[in-house]
C-alpha cells in the first residue's frame, strides 16, 4: 500500500487506510504504521461503522471513489498474497483507468484476506 500511495498520491489520488478490527487499538496501529513507514493517513473505525457502511468483510479490501463521490471499484489490491505470483494488479489498473478518463472494465474483484473482527462478532 505504501508503494501504491507513493505512486498515486503524486497523481492526485488520496489514500486512506482504515482499521476496523476490534482487537487492535490506536496505539498498536500507530506502532505498526511507524514500523512499516506508512505515510498515508490511517483511521480507526472503532465501532465498524465504516466497515458496515461499505460492507467490508476482509483485510485488505479496497474501495475507489471517484471525484464525483461515486464508488467505482471495490475489491482486492491484486490476485495473490505472494508477490511473485501476482498476475493481475486490479487496484492499480482501476486507478490508472480512472486517472486517464477511461471506463473501468472491472468494478469488482473479489477480495481475499482475514475476516474483520467486529464489535458484534463472536
Amino acid at each position: 500500500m505504501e508503494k501504491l500511495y507513493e505512486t498515486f498520491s503524486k497523481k492526485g489520488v488520496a489514500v486512506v487506510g482504515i482499521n476496523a478490527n476490534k482487537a487492535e487499538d490506536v496505539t498498536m496501529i500507530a506502532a505498526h504504521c511507524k514500523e512499516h513507514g506508512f505515510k498515508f493517513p490511517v483511521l480507526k473505525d472503532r465501532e465498524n461503522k465504516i466497515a458496515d457502511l461499505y460492507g467490508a468483510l476482509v483485510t485488505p479490501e479496497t474501495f475507489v471513489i471517484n471525484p464525483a463521490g461515486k464508488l467505482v471499484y471495490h475489491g482486492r489490491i491484486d490476485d495473490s498474497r505472494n508477490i511473485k505470483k501476482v498476475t493481475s494488479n486490479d487496484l492499480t489498473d482501476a486507478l490508472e483507468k480512472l486517472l486517464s478518463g477511461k471506463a473501468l472494465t472491472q468494478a469488482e474483484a473479489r477480495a481475499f484476506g482475514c475476516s474483520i473482527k467486529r464489535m458484534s462478532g463472536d
Partner: protein
Amino acid sequence: MTEIRFGRLVPLVLVLSWALACTGASAQSSRTDSVEVIPIDHRQLLDIIKHDSGNVVLVNAWATWCKPCKEEMPALLKLKRDFEKKGLRLILLSADDIDVLDTSVRPMLKQFGVTFPTYIMADSSEEVFLTSMNPKWTGAFALPTSFIFDRKGKLAETMVGGKKYETFKNILEKTMRWGVGP
C-alpha cells in the same frame, strides 16, 4: 453504489480495512514431516464430501497468516473430539501458498496438536474454490470461513469469520438433526 462527498475533488482509495492481524507472516524455519497435508482442488474436495455418506462435514478454510483462524482452531479441534462419534467430519483446508507448506503450514498444525490428515488448497485461485463451495456467495472471501454440509452432502451453512465453540455447536446440532429420520 454508495456515494460520499468531499470538499476536494480527488479520487480516493479507502483501504478498508487494513489490519495488523492479517499482515504478519507466520513462517517458521523448521521442517516438520509428521503432519499429513494433502494438496486438493475443489473437485476432489466436493467428491470427498459427496461420498462421505451420513456424516456432517465441516470444511474450515484457514491460513497461517490469519490471526482469527489461529484463534478459532482450538474450538474446531474440540468440536472434532466431541462430535466425531456423532457423525462429524472436520476437514481443515489451508489457503496458504503451497510454497510455505513445510515452513509454515505443517509446523503450525503440529503446534495445534493436529495429527489427522489435513489439506491445502490446490485450486488455481481462491475464487475458484469459494464459488465451488458456495456458488451464491457474493462478498469477499474472508478467512476463516467454515462450510457445513449436511448428511446428504448439501451445503447447510457458510460461517464467515472466527467463531466460538458454542456457535459451531448450535449449528452442528441443528444440521445433524436435519439428517435424522425419513
